[in-house]
């Protein structure tokens, strides 16, 4: 902020006085007018500083509507000015997002707007990982756990810890030991889907250790050629999921089929997930769902079946 010009600083001071006086409408209009002027003269940095500070003041004053309106405006300016994803541009958004109340009605739109910018101006097809990390926390706070999960799985290492903690807290809320596999499976599948074996292993270790320490299930540890497995004599799903991890690592199709065959219950339960992993790691092309009528029609018309 030290580089901010004097005129801008004075504008912000006047703005702050209006906010403190509760004159929110006036403050919002004035700020937008001045920001527009900066944008028109392509003084983007000034516009960005002004809008960011203005938004933060509104959010701190509990004015979520005006605060988030200015976030959308900031994103418009980011887009116009072709601001690339870097530490400065992301941390500005992170600072704003942290100031947004988790119960703000348009929280999801704010998040989507921010993430879309980070997709457009970075090499990450799903957005910036450090931004995802903060989005994940905000969504957990707001109770949007499935949305949080998607962002955390595409986050940084800190997100991995949050993801494990989220699933563990969730599991603990009901304390239904029979459902442990459902929670654990999400960690394994999420990371296997995006070919992140390192974090799949780390999440496995953290999560299963929590379970062992707090529930004292019957467990035996296997350690073979560097692969560690917790064998749960009463929870087959957990054994299956650990073996699945190792199997994906080998990319050995026979092993995969053998594993699926032995654990038919787990295989049925996770059939969609396994079909994807089959393609991803073992080159097994998924059978196309056959539709008799469609095939017949396609036959009559001489075209290929299916769409």
């Amino acid at each position: 902020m030290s580089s901010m010009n004097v005129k801008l600083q004075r504008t912000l001071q006047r703005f702050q006085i209006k906010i403190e006086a509760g004159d929110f409408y006036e403050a919002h209009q004035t700020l937008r007018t001045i920001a527009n002027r900066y944008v028109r003269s392509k003084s983007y940095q000034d516009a960005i500083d002004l809008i960011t500070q203005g938004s933060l003041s509104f959010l701190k004053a509990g004015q979520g509507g005006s605060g988030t309106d200015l976030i959308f405006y900031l994103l418009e300016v980011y887009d116009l000015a072709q601001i690339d994803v870097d530490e400065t541009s992301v941390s500005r958004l992170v600072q704003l997002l942290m100031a947004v109340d988790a119960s703000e009605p348009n929280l999801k739109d704010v998040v989507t707007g921010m993430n879309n910018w980070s997709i457009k101006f970075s090499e990450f097809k799903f957005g910036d990982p450090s931004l995802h990390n903060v989005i994940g926390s905000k969504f957990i706070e707001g109770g949007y756990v499935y949305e949080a999960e998607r962002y955390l799985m595409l986050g940084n290492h800190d997100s991995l810890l949050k993801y494990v903690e989220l699933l563990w807290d969730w599991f603990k809320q009901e304390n239904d030991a029979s459902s442990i596999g459902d929670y654990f499976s999400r960690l394994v599948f999420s990371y296997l889907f995006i070919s992140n074996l390192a974090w799949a292993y780390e999440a496995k270790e953290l999560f299963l250790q929590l379970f062992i320490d707090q529930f004292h299930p019957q467990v035996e540890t296997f350690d073979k050629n560097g692969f560690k497995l917790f064998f749960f004599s009463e929870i087959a799903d957990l054994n299956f999921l650990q073996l699945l991890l190792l199997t994906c690592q080998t990319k050995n199709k026979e092993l995969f089929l053998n594993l699926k065959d032995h654990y038919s219950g787990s295989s049925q339960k996770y059939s969609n997930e396994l079909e994807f992993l089959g393609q991803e790691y073992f080159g097994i092309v998924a059978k196309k769902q056959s539709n008799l009528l469609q095939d017949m029609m396609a036959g009559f018309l001489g075209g290929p079946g299916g769409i």
Partner: protein
Amino acid sequence: MASPEHEFVSKFLTLATLNQPVLPADYKKPLQQVNSLGVALPALKYKYHSKKT
């Protein structure tokens, strides 16, 4: 008395770790190269209770 599952796991581990796995255990595809997020996971049986209420 080892259960059939115990026996299977033991044999499977031996087989699967016989050779060096194709992907190292610390393998991580850079997120820049991730194009697919896999399939949507089904909702869990229990609702999450947000701490902040």
